[in-house]
């Protein structure tokens, strides 16, 4: 059984306008997202702004309430959990935020920030909690003497470590990493990425790694799912996605990422997409990507293709939501409509 199973997760934000605050439309932030996560693996969720990846992460933890869909953690229903059940789930599912300056309460000392979940869940005696906070700080590369300080006394990278220590406090099984390194300096990013990898090995953690930086996502993830306008358009094994992308959006995305290698940059083939990303309040009909798609045909305007397994090499799973995936030379194929949850995740 997968650790986390997400099925048709949907979040529509109502747009209220006018004096009477009537609902005039919706922002289709997350629109039928499904995936599964096994224990110990890292699933990267990648996409540009407005694709819904951050909303997806928050909805899993019910920091935002989903509109519909199911989320199952170790077989337990998350979205419909009672208050008490949700409290217990919060010990197993944690989150690391993007902004190291905004995610720590400036008026709380580090020891209170890190130890708060222990206090809330009544884990251990005060003395034991204090000891655990020191341990956690050491684990993330800080020291016990930092416990008495305030967040503003630390650099961005150190603050992010404090955030990681906080997430680790209740001994979670799953950590949702929401752009954990985007706001950090390049030289500090590698420190935090390595730390996250080490922690995963030492503590048997499972990560949902949400980011827009494809290089980072590829590096840390076992599998990657690409989101566009609230939907997953492609998902597969990490290295496979990058070597053999199937979806035209994925191809464009990959070709747009600058590579720190001048020779490669000079010889690369670039796919430049036309226009801007449409607003999730007004998604295109049919396939959400068709207005910008170099391969778009008549059928693409009719209905959004379902995410189905195109069957990678050696039977590895490679799901694409496209009528003309690259694997088949851009020609229309009957994509086997295997629903994502029926198969095991990843190779």
């Amino acid at each position, binding site marked *: 059984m997968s650790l986390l199973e997400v099925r048709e997760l949907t979040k529509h934000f109502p747009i209220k306008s006018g004096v009477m605050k009537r609902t005039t439309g919706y922002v289709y932030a997350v629109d039928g997202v499904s995936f599964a996560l096994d224990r110990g693996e890292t699933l990267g969720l990648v996409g540009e702004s407005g694709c819904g990846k951050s909303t997806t992460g928050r909805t899993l933890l019910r920091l935002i309430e989903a509109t519909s869909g199911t989320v199952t953690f170790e077989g337990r229903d998350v979205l419909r959990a009672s208050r008490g059940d949700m409290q217990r789930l919060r010990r197993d599912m944690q989150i690391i935020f993007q902004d190291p300056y905004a995610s720590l309460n400036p008026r709380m000392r580090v020891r209170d920030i890190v130890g708060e979940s222990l206090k809330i869940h009544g884990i251990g005696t005060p003395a034991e909690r204090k000891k655990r906070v020191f341990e956690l700080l050491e684990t993330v590369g800080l020291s016990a003497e930092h416990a008495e300080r305030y967040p503003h006394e630390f650099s961005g990278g150190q603050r992010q470590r404090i955030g990681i220590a906080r997430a680790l406090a209740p001994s979670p099984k799953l950590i949702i990493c929401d752009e954990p390194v985007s706001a950090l300096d390049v030289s500090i990013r590698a420190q935090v990425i390595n730390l996250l990898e080490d922690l995963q090995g030492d503590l048997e953690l499972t990560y949902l790694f949400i980011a827009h930086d494809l290089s980072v996502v590829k590096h840390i993830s076992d599998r990657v799912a690409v989101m566009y306008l609230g939907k997953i358009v492609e998902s597969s094994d990490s290295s496979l996605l990058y070597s053999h992308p199937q979806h035209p959006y994925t191809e464009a995305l990959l070709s747009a990422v*600058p590579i720190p290698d001048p020779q490669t940059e000079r010889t690369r083939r670039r796919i430049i997409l036309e226009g801007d990303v449409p607003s999730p309040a007004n998604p295109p009909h049919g396939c959400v990507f068709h207005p910008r798609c170099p391969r778009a045909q008549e059928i693409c305007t009719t209905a959004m293709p379902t995410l189905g397994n195109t069957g990678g090499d050696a039977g590895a799973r490679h799901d694409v939501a496209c009528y003309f995936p690259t694997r088949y030379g851009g020609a229309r194929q009957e994509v086997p409509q295997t629903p994502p949850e029926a198969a095991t995740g990843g190779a």
Partner: protein
Amino acid sequence: MAGHLLEVTELSTHFFTHAGVVKAVNGVSFTLDRRETLGIVGESGSGKTVAALSLMRLVPDPPGKIVEGSLLLGGRDLRTMSGEEIRRVRGNDIAMIFQDPMTSLNPVVKVGKQIAEAITLHQDKSKAEAWEMAAKLLARVGIPDADKRVSQYPFEFSGGMRQRAMIAMAISCNPDILIADEPTTALDVTIQAQIIDVIREMQERYESGVIAITHDLGVVAEIADKVMVMYGGRTVEYAGIDEIFYNPQHPYTWGLLGSLPRLDEAEKTRLTPIKGQPPDLLALPEGCPFVGRCAYERPECRDKWPSLEIVGAEHGVHCWIPADERLSARKRLPHFEKLVP
């Protein structure tokens, strides 16, 4: 060397704050020619943005002050110009594109008007002519329906379009130099690619020199002809684009290159981060600001700033490690095995 378009020598900009003196830029020198792109690479606290602002004399004074250096633009020293003269230079000879297009455009003024203002400020054009030029410029930077867009407000533009509008404003007076401060950081990656194309196109068209300030080595690899690496207010290394990536000489440059996850890495490699924290600008050592983070530190590094060592044509580095030791140290680094020996 024949006259460069821009010649900066020993630029030093300090901030005099209540907590002490922040030497944001400390003895930085570089040149720029027409049609050339200089990439200034650094992280927060490196001084790259302050250096660019110093060129335009936009450093807030107080608490900032250009304490030293000459900034020669076509022979004229920007530093000693009068307020009137420097205002004529800004937008006209040197134009700047800021990082965040959301906050750099005035939200209550129509986009066309903002561009037209830039035009009428420096050129002898009527308002109607300026407005027409504004529409043409928007089209030139690739904004569709430019005639309609020119009468819209910034909030009606997307992030990418706003950045294009900023570029349109910047090129409106055919600047000799275009400074792009983190032009792609706030944008999505597919939009980044578009913007970089626009900048390149404009550079071609107007034969301008471009200074691209960024922390993203990928962007640098894409657009720069030569690179200056800054750390703690100092230039630690400068070189041509290929030299900096394939023959880097400074431990900080190695560190930067080694800490990057790459899209084209074959199997999973572990990143080699730079240990430590960014420098405290209030407590910079007299010597190399990279002390404390450098794996090859020697006693003289803290107290004496290394003199310039010319390593090749147009390639200089400031480091106390002797050249041969540097090369063998570099060879031992995991990600440099395949580099030029």
